[in-house]
């Protein structure tokens, strides 16, 4: 039976809540887990709504066994890191004594009871032009133990009732739960994040008319107790959670085993051949991926059309899935959503998109669209040519013709462009730099690689066994983001 990530929100705005759910729906869900969402639309208070959603009563004893991982979040929180659940799992599985994870908080509660009057930790989304990365933990992350977290996103692994007896409004429910969690012997942490995992779009203006009222209640309930502050030395706590180096190494190993036992997903490489007759430009690479234990290969032939004299796509769809060899398992494009699958890499061999006068793949499979569905769009030409020396005057005609297959969308949008040789790489870089300007040269130098072509891999017969394993894969693998 699958375990559950239970999202819980109190909402008074359908528009925002629907959008919040769209981001939840985009998350990658770890194997063996599923998502449930409960929205409370008539909460008397945050505590009351949350208790109701988790079927808890304030007098209930703490529940720690067979409890879903609950993710309490505001309706204006948008989870932008799709590895969010994987990261949570990594933390919870590596630290059984952690009861609550937040995205922002303070290691030391300020005597006023206002947590953001103290030092802040965590990662909040800010207006920026810097590139965003969906970071994924592959080993135990650094954590900071905190006195309190902010309530916009709180993750719990134990059911400790929310104190609706004390907090009957919409403030201090979050701080209170952190203290209750600790009283139950569980720790409260904020993970180190290089990039934010979510956006909290609260309008930056907080209408805190009742905050002072609940602040006083909080101080009365918790302020005089010994556990008001978790720690006095932020760094020492952090070090404690980091642990000695050898402990971390063994933890990494145990986490690897945990991931394997959970059926950690292989990374998917999606091949999108167009014409079956050009499959040989991918085949040996596909076999290499197929036989790599850390990856899985999917082949999905994409439909295409001829174009008429006015460049309009003709009505008849060309779809060659049936023409592929029997030993190549393929999926039907009707049954597979690239955006939802978000493969680790997508390999294409047709670079033209709308720029070919004779044919076009369906627009859904244009490079600029595919680029949004993977971290690694890889283009490998479906052809090889005679070698072309860019610096020789004798090759002017061939160089002129290169513009028809070099300055095209598939090359421009791909993250990696694998060409047949270093000499051809040089020609590609010069032509692309000529098109885009000298200040873009480094972009092309970074992405164009002269590793060779699967077309150079000779096969010895007809069947799967006779397909060579392309040495290209080992080099491409090292370049993947």
């Amino acid at each position: 039976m699958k375990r559950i990530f239970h999202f819980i929100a109190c909402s008074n705005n359908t528009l925002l809540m629907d959008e919040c759910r769209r981001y939840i729906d985009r998350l990658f869900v770890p194997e063996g887990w599923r998502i449930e969402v409960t929205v409370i639309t008539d909460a008397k208070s945050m505590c009351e709504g949350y208790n109701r959603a988790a079927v808890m009563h304030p007098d209930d004893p703490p529940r720690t066994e067979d409890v879903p991982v609950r993710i309490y979040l505001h309706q204006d929180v948008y989870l932008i890191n799709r590895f969010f659940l994987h990261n949570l799992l990594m933390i919870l599985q590596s630290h059984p004594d952690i009861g609550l994870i937040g995205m922002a908080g303070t290691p030391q509660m300020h005597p006023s009871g206002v947590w953001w009057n103290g030092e802040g930790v965590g990662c909040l989304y800010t207006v920026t032009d810097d590139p965003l990365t969906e970071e994924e933990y592959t080993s135990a992350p650094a954590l900071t133990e905190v006195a309190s977290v902010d309530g916009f996103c709180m993750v719990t692994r134990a059911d400790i009732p929310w104190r609706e007896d004390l907090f009957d409004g919409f403030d201090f429910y979050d701080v209170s739960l952190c203290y209750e969690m600790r009283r139950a012997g569980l720790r409260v942490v904020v993970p180190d994040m290089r990039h934010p995992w979510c956006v909290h779009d609260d309008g930056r203006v907080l209408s805190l008319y009742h905050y002072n009222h609940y602040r006083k209640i909080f101080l009365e309930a918790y302020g005089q107790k010994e556990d008001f502050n978790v720690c006095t030395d932020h760094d020492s706590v952090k070090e404690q959670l980091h642990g000695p180096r050898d402990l971390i190494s063994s933890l990494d190993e145990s986490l690897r085993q945990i991931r394997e036992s959970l059926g950690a997903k292989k990374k998917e490489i999606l091949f999108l051949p167009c014409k079956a007759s050009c499959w040989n430009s991918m085949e040996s690479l596909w076999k290499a991926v197929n036989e790599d234990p850390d990856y899985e290969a999917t082949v999905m032939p994409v439909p295409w059309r001829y174009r008429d004299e006015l460049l309009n796509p003709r009505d008849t769809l060309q779809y060659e899935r049936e023409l592929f060899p029997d030993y190549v398992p393929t999926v039907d494009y009707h049954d597979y959503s690239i955006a939802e699958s978000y493969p680790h890499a997508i390999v294409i061999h047709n670079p033209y998109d709308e720029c070919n006068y004779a044919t076009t793949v369906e627009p859904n499979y244009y490079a600029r669209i595919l680029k949004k569905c993977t971290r690694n769009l890889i283009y490998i030409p479906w052809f090889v040519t005679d070698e072309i020396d860019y610096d020789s005057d004798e090759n002017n005609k061939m160089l002129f013709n290169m513009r028809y297959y070099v300055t095209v969308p598939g090359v421009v949008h791909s993250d990696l462009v694998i060409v047949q040789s270093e000499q051809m790489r040089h020609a590609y870089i010069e032509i692309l730099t000529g098109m885009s300007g000298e200040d873009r040269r480094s972009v092309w130098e970074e992405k164009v690689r002269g590793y060779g072509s699967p077309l150079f891999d000779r096969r010895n017969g007809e069947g799967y066994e006779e397909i060579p394993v392309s040495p290209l894969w080992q080099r491409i693998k090292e370049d993947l983001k």
Partner: protein
Amino acid sequence: MLKGKTPEEYIALLEEMERNESRDLAFIDMVRQKTDEALSSSGTEALLAMESLFSEEPARTILARSAELLKLRYLITAVRNEQALGLPLLIRDIDSCDALLTRYDEINLMLRRIELDLAPLDEEALTYLREHRISPYCVSAVLYNMISSTGHREHVLLRIAEDAMDHGAFLDAYGFLNVIEQPSPDTVALKNELQDALTGGGSA
């Protein structure tokens, strides 16, 4: 809100808010009522005249603690700009304060999808902006303000401009490029090129 405040000053602010809750909420309610009246019957001029409501105390203080009021104010300014240029007004199919605030939130959500390149939601967002004929002034009002948490603003506006060009709306595209604050040199060049094309100018 916290900027430049000591913890003691912040507590004093919380106490002041607690004391003045009734006054603040009454003012917010009054603005909402006037917005409802302007949108349902009085007309555009009545809505634009509301700008003056925000210029004096205690309105200025209350404005700084109500995202709702700030949104209204930003959109009223956008409508004023639309009217000045003869563009279709944002409020042409809106008849209540709630509907106007919802439109703000919708635009805001769409801009985030575009910012984050959330395929296929970003394409839906571009379609939304196009089909509702959301003007560059509205987009700018929602994007460039103190309560917006949408970043990569040049990227957002470039994508909207690109979409407008893809649909043959070159004047709109120019409008979106024109509201980019502190544009990069590439964007300036693109804007100039488009301006030349639209006005028949440029070198022969």
